[in-house]
């Protein structure tokens, strides 16, 4: 986001995915189906995504602590100027994400 505002090409995109386990599925099974997708180093190397996951269904205090941590990590640049966040609601159909990307493209941003 800050790279777009500075008109500089970003090297990567930082992503925190807040997720729920689907009914009848388990994290273990999800991991076994596609282990590379949950290997931070591989995801970074393959997609240039510095990606992490936070469970929404767990203990509320752990969710608050995780949210505060990730907010702290990415809310500012090194010189303490604010950075922005984009929130995308990823439904199975991913319609809101697709719509938002169209809006960004229309405003001249190359996602």
């Amino acid at each position, binding site marked *: 986001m800050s790279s777009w505002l500075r008109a500089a090409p970003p090297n990567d995109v930082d992503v925190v995915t807040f*997720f729920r386990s689907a009914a009848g599925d*388990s*994290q*273990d099974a*999800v*991991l076994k189906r596609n282990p590379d997708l*949950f*290997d*931070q*180093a591989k995801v970074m190397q393959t997609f240039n995504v510095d990606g*992490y*996951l*936070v*469970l929404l269904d*767990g*203990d509320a*205090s*752990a969710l608050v*602590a*995780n949210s505060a*941590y990730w907010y702290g*990590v990415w809310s500012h640049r090194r*010189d303490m100027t604010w950075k922005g966040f984009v929130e995308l609601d990823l439904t199975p159909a991913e319609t809101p994400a697709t719509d938002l990307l169209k809006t960004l493209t229309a405003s001249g941003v190359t996602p």
Partner: protein
Amino acid sequence: MNRGERQLLLSEYSTLQELLKRASAGDILGKRSLESRLASVKALLDQMPADTRMPARACVTFRGKPVVGSHGIFAEFGAKATQLFTDVVSKVAAGMEGPLKETGPVPNKAQNQLLITNTAIGSFGFELEEHRDEPLLIDDGGVVGEALAATLDLLEATNLDDDRLAEAAAGIEDRAITAARTFLMLLGESDAVCAVETRGKRFGFSDVAQVRRAVSRLAKENLIEGFANKAGEFQGVLPKSRTFEFKLSGSNEVIKGKIGPGVANPDALNAMLHKPMTVVFAETRVATGKPRYTLNTMPIA
């Protein structure tokens, strides 16, 4: 990489450990994320020496004619004032490390440099930070931090009584006092005032008249530095705080003072306690005020 960055990483490391402890057993994906982050932070920490320290920092702000509120500062004045301020600090620092000649290159100027790291919030000014290419080590003395504190004390003392000014100026080399006077002259001529903040202490001139008075008080005619031969005996020496007590012969008067950089091992003075001797002290006096003494050379018992 300095101690500030190391402290941030250590803090992040312990936060991640805490988050991992709180993660539920079934949260396999969440834990994998935290573990990979923890590994990245640890890799960065492993690259850093543990004995680094925080860089010295100061905030210098200006008000007056050359300053447009908190919007900006005229470039010519800002550049000149900042250069003269850093010149004071590098000369005070050089004097702390060894004798400073009246002319010629300032010793260790490169390693006592200050970096402008940001503009200061409030009145317009700059945040300055000690800079070295190599890591700042705990045992390298941190002379820039000491010099910034001594510079602030000297500026503040120009607004205090003669004894306090003599106290602040004692141990600061003539050339550094002259540099401080040159800095203040620029402010006075430009109808500006400054404020300096370092190590949690702040001093600011309230008006230009105060700055101009400070210029006069640092003049050689007012701030007199010389040497004094004193006969007597050392009563005690504090090697870490580099201070001494010396009882004059034939009286009960005890003079207290600072031990300058010329005495490499102040602890050796403790072997000379209560032995009669004549010692040459540097003497600093403001107008007719009480003199302050600095021991710059090791006496011979």
